[in-house]
């Protein structure tokens, strides 16, 4: 057990410049029904180096992580460790080979203790082959201490915050002496201070000679801690190399596959009357004192880091959760919103971020998905009028240029982008005043993405008030008339016109003080 020995670093002397990869993926392909997730992908990880994996949502990053950790088995290609080909039939095999992943949403066990989480599957044993609880605690303490985490190994995992859970996952990686550590957006929901601590830890892992695959959307951190980069786009590798040899602009271009500003529809905004006014919206734990107004034909962007409370606020505005304070005015009249049903009644609709769970009703056909919130209009005295239901679905799916075989096809059979179109069609069919789109293009293909953007512009042009929550700077800049930045549950700033720059948004979202020249 490595846990007690201090010096993996001694065992693998670290020169950050080793040119022989510790792990290589060669020609990996993986497809799912209807989608080619990875095609002929290659990836090299070097000992003592951090390789940043860059790509848009849906580029195949999470699939490659699952291939590396034995969750998915690729149809073609091979995994080579130390020059020898290996096969990961199960997650166990990957672990034995020294590969471990630290996920964005930690996949650990909330109801088990910290020590158990670290050692589940490979706990130290007593002479009789039983789990040695004392040793589990002792070694967990050692590991946590080694990474500078002040966490009691006896507490239940669910009592910890996200940052601490990450530390537990890292301790687990050390406990199996993982030579290859995959970090999937480890800083996504961390505070500034916690992020710094994570970077230090990455340095430590590097110094110990481990190969690190670092997945991140934040370019500043990629350029700060990575030694190499690999870029994925649409399931293919489109480039790799040393980080010193590439500029941020080139990396973005490589990732997006086209220059950023031509992606978004040209639109001239011409806001009309005020539709929505939110005053002092607060929640005990999620957000506080949110207030803004929104006009017809306007696209208002909400930017912030993941976990800044944007979705939580939007869901309260839509009546899913209850605010503790605050008021909503629609057309200058007080609107009481306690359920989504009431929100829809007031003309506020919400296209959720979690499409699979909250948006699409998989198992129901397309036309029934579209008509679901409009059943009041497609039925009479509670009895459904099928012809009207089909008419409604046909009209709105046509507007969104939905690609499907027929209206009675199960929505679950469609691609992510087409599912999103159905969800948007469903809301337009209710003839709303305000449409909230929460990460509307997350995880959908480039083509659908452009279609969704154009459609948003068209809706605004028709006078609909649009709120768009997005974590993608280009999307926020490309689409919004005005942007509100949230940080730690509060509004941290509001920008429009010339003040609407990537710099301002990123700094405000991260809470970094403006450095005056």
């Amino acid at each position, binding site marked *: 057990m490595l846990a007690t020995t201090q010096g993996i670093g001694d065992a693998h002397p670290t020169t950050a410049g080793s040119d022989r990869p510790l792990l290589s993926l060669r020609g990996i392909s993986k497809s799912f029904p209807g989608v080619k997730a990875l095609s002929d992908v290659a990836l090299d990880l070097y000992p003592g180096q951090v390789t940043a994996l860059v790509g848009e949502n849906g580029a195949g990053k999470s699939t490659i992580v699952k291939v590396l950790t034995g969750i998915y088995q690729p149809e073609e290609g091979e995994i080579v460790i130390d020059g020898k080909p290996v096969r990961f039939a199960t997650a166990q095999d990957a672990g034995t080979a020294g590969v471990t992943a630290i996920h964005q949403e930690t996949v650990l066990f909330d109801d088990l203790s910290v020590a158990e989480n670290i050692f589940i599957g490979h706990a130290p044993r007593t002479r009789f082959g039983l789990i040695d609880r004392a040793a589990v605690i002792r070694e967990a303490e050692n590991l946590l201490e080694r990474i500078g985490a002040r966490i009691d190994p006896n507490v239940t995992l669910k009592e910890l915050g996200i940052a601490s859970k990450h530390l537990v996952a890292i301790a687990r990686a050390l406990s199996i002496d993982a030579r290859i550590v995959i970090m999937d957006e480890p800083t996504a929901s961390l505070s500034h201070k916690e992020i710094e601590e994570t970077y230090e830890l990455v340095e430590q892992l590097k110094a110990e000679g481990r190969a690190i695959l670092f997945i991140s959307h934040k370019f500043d951190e990629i350029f700060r801690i990575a030694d190499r980069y690999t870029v994925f786009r649409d399931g293919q590798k489109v480039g790799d190399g040393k980080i010193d040899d590439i500029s941020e602009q080139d990396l973005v271009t490589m990732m997006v596959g086209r220059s950023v500003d031509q992606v978004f529809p040209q639109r001239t905004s011409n806001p009309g009357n005020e539709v929505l006014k939110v005053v002092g919206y607060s929640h005990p734990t999620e957000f506080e004192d949110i207030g803004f107004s929104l006009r017809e034909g306007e696209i208002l962007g909400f930017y912030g880091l993941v976990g800044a409370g944007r979705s939580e606020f939007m869901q309260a505005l839509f009546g899913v959760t209850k605010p503790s304070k605050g008021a909503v005015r629609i057309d200058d009249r007080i609107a009481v919103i306690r359920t989504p049903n009431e929100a829809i009644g007031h003309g506020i609709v919400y296209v959720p971020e979690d499409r699979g769970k909250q*948006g699409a009703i998989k198992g129901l056909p397309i036309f029934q998905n579209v008509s*679901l919130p409009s059943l009041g209009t497609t039925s009479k005295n509670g009895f459904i009028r099928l012809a009207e239901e089909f008419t409604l679905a046909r*009209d709105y*799916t046509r507007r969104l240029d939905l690609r499907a075989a027929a209206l009675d096809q199960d929505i679950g059979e469609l691609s992510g982008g087409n599912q999103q179109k159905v969800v948007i069609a469903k809301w337009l069919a209710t003839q709303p005043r305000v449409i909230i789109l929460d990460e509307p293009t997350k995880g959908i293909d480039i083509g659908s993405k452009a279609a969704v953007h154009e459609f948003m512009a068209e809706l605004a042009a028709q006078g609909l008030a649009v709120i768009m929550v997005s974590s993608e700077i280009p999307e926020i800049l490309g689409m919004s008339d005005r942007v509100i930045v949230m940080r730690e549950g509060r509004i941290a700033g509001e920008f429009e016109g010339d003040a609407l720059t990537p710099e301002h948004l990123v700094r405000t979202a991260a809470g970094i003080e403006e450095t005056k020249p």
Partner: protein
Amino acid sequence: MSLSPPHTQPPSPGPVEASGRSLPDRLKSPLSRFLGSWELLLLIVAAAVFVINSNASPYFLDPWNLSDATFNFTEKAMIAFAMALLIISGEIDLSVASIIALTSTAMGFAVQLGADTGMLIVIGLGVGLACGAFNGFLVTGFGLPSIVVTIGTMSLFRGLSYIVLGDKAYTGYPADFAFFGQGYVWWVITFEFVLFAVVALVFAVLLHRTSFGRAVTAIGNNPVGALFSGIQVARVKFTLFLLTGLMSGVAAICLTSRLGATRPSIAFGWELEVVTMVVLGGVSILGGSGSIPGVVIAAFVMGMVTFGFGLLNVPGIVMSIFIGLLLIAVIALPKIARQLLAGRRS
């Protein structure tokens, strides 16, 4: 923010200009959908059981015997229709048989106080509804898992019956009360069978033709998504528990009338037969899909198997082996077939 405009009618983003192409309504014709359906498979099973039974025993095709045989399933099926909706919505009610016991006990108690048939009906339906409301309140009000809640109320409701009755029985029901479980409407057609048919029709329309039924299906497929689509999930689920309670009350009236007596062990074990009937009828135990016609055919299959085995002097418990095997087989077979197909393809 400074603008506070007069109220204007919003520009309607109605479906005026079409940008894409129109999709066809349906991919498959109604006939081809029927040919691939669970209901057809069940119909074939039902036909086979019918043929086997009529060959095995000369008494099977006697109209009076067949009429008698419908009692094997009519009461259970009436609960099964409501249970089907409940299971489609992703919940379950294991207390239905105990609701029968409590309802029957309440009616028996009322008889001792001199209640007439009209009163008995009111009590029967009322107690059923109250039990359903209690289950629904615990599940939707506190967000408790229905399987555990109804295992609890299953003990509680029947337990109350035992407290009231112990090892005794209530008898002495009014003569005209016998009609519900023993009366004939026309020739061999019993009142219960007519009631069964009417209830089947009502539930089929409710599930397949109303917006309430659509909400039930949506909730079963994705409760969170349904909530986000403006469906009042808790209210729909509460209504379903009420309906299941109500139908258990109806079944209690029929069964009590048919037996003419109430013991606390009345309808013991029925919850499992009802659930089996629903699952056999093609309702997914995980929620989200199912049809009332399927449950109707499943009811006939189970009733005819029971009746056929009875004619052959096969004890009821052997029949239950058959039903148990059928239950597992009908769910396992499609999966086995799919696995074999997938295996051959790769």
